[in-house]
């Protein structure tokens, strides 16, 4: 799974959980401000992304992300760690 695949999964998860259209889920989009996500949404999003990408990410790490791009970085990093 490369970064494009992770982005695609993130777009789908955001659309499903946040009820936003897929074209609003850009790399620069801020989850809380641009996509109107609250703490419940972020918890749901974290679980959905772990399932879709097949990686386990500590809850604390997910709380640090601000943008979609940050989310991709975090997931990529944990995916690489899991592979090594």
């Amino acid at each position: 799974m490369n970064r494009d695949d992770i982005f695609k999964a993130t777009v789908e998860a955001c659309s499903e959980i946040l009820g936003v259209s897929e074209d609003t889920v850009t790399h620069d989009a801020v989850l809380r401000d641009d996509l109107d996500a609250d703490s419940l949404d972020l918890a749901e999003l974290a679980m959905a992304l772990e399932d879709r990408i097949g990686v386990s990410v500590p809850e604390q790490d997910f709380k640090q992300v601000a943008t979609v791009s940050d989310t991709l970085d975090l997931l990529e990093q944990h995916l690489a760690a899991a592979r090594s």
Partner: protein
Amino acid sequence: MSHSTQQGSPTEDQRPTRDPESLARDHEGRWRVAITGMGVKTPAGCDLKTMYETMLNATPVTAPITLFDASDLPVRIACEVRDFDPLAYVDRRISRRMDRVSQLGFAAAMDAVGDAGSPAGESARRAVIVGTGTGGAPTMGDQAIAFERNGANRVSALLVPMLMPNATGAFVAMELGWTGPNYAVGSACASGTTALGEAARLIRHGQCDVVLAGGAENSVNVYAMASFCRSGALSTRNDDPAGASRPFDADRDGYVMGEGATFLVLERLDQALARDARIYGEVVGYALNSDAHHLTAPRPDGSGAAACMRAAITDAGLTPECIGHVNAHGTGTDLNDAMEARALHGVFPTGPPPVTSVKGVFGHLMGAAGAAEAAIAMLSATNGVVPPTANHERGDEDFTLDVVVDAPQPIGPQPVMSNSFGFGGHNACLVLSPFAGR
């Protein structure tokens, strides 16, 4: 004021002259309570007109279960709310935060507010009371499966907010910006009636100007159905769904599970009049008590239910002769119907007035039943007709009741008593009266 002046038919010049202040208060000096809005999401219709016409036509809506795979259950029929799309009321994000109980409840509540127009009063004096038997319990079941399959890390953060019985009220308050009292009441199958009664109390005693109250239940789910199948409470007429719910009938074999929601807007009568609101009628009497007898069975002699009915009539400042008809709990179970008949004979020594049970049409809506039935009872009382009881074909030899069958029975506008009795021995009764005029 005395309600007896409303229920008789005095000519205009025989009516006592009252100043507006005395018209605003009841026989005990409490604020009178008007019903100014109704919203329904029921198996008999998702709008008031459709639901009421289905009742007058006594068309049963019981059908095979479609909401889940019921093939393993001994009972595979129920009354489901059809043609309901929560996305007509909330967006996808909010919808997935709601158990079906809140989707149904929120939609009915919004319809009720839309129907009521623009009630007076500041937001802090507007309340929401939701009656529900089990709230979002089905979500708990689904999440228990997720836990069992995938561990604690796969339990949703939404579990508790979706499960809590007060969730529906929270969504309603957030949407409307109503900051007054907001809570859920649970008295099993009496929850909807209890919610309306408690709402009337808030207005009567001057604590609130407007209360949106009712009941909601997501009960056609595999967990509730499996449990009620095991307890033997449900009709097993899988091959005759339309004939399954048979209130007070000699051949009744249990109730039919229903689901849905109904909300009513209750408003201080004088304020409703001041804004020229349409008034369906008044909540004039309410009582609740407990059998203190058994976890599921009613007290067989009906003494608890009878005491509750008497108290509600007394609360209304009326006597039993003033009650034009009874919208019975009438579940179609052996125990309830026999008990309720005994109780009615105890309350009405010269014989109960005409009795109807709308559960013959749309089954038992559990925590929503009392609210939906109050809406139907209010319309019936004001229209002066008693809806017929579907599937009541043969009287039980153990009791006699004037059960209305076949066609609506005209009786003229008169107060109605609406009964609800819940698991745990919770009894709740409302007396609703037509509004005589301005």
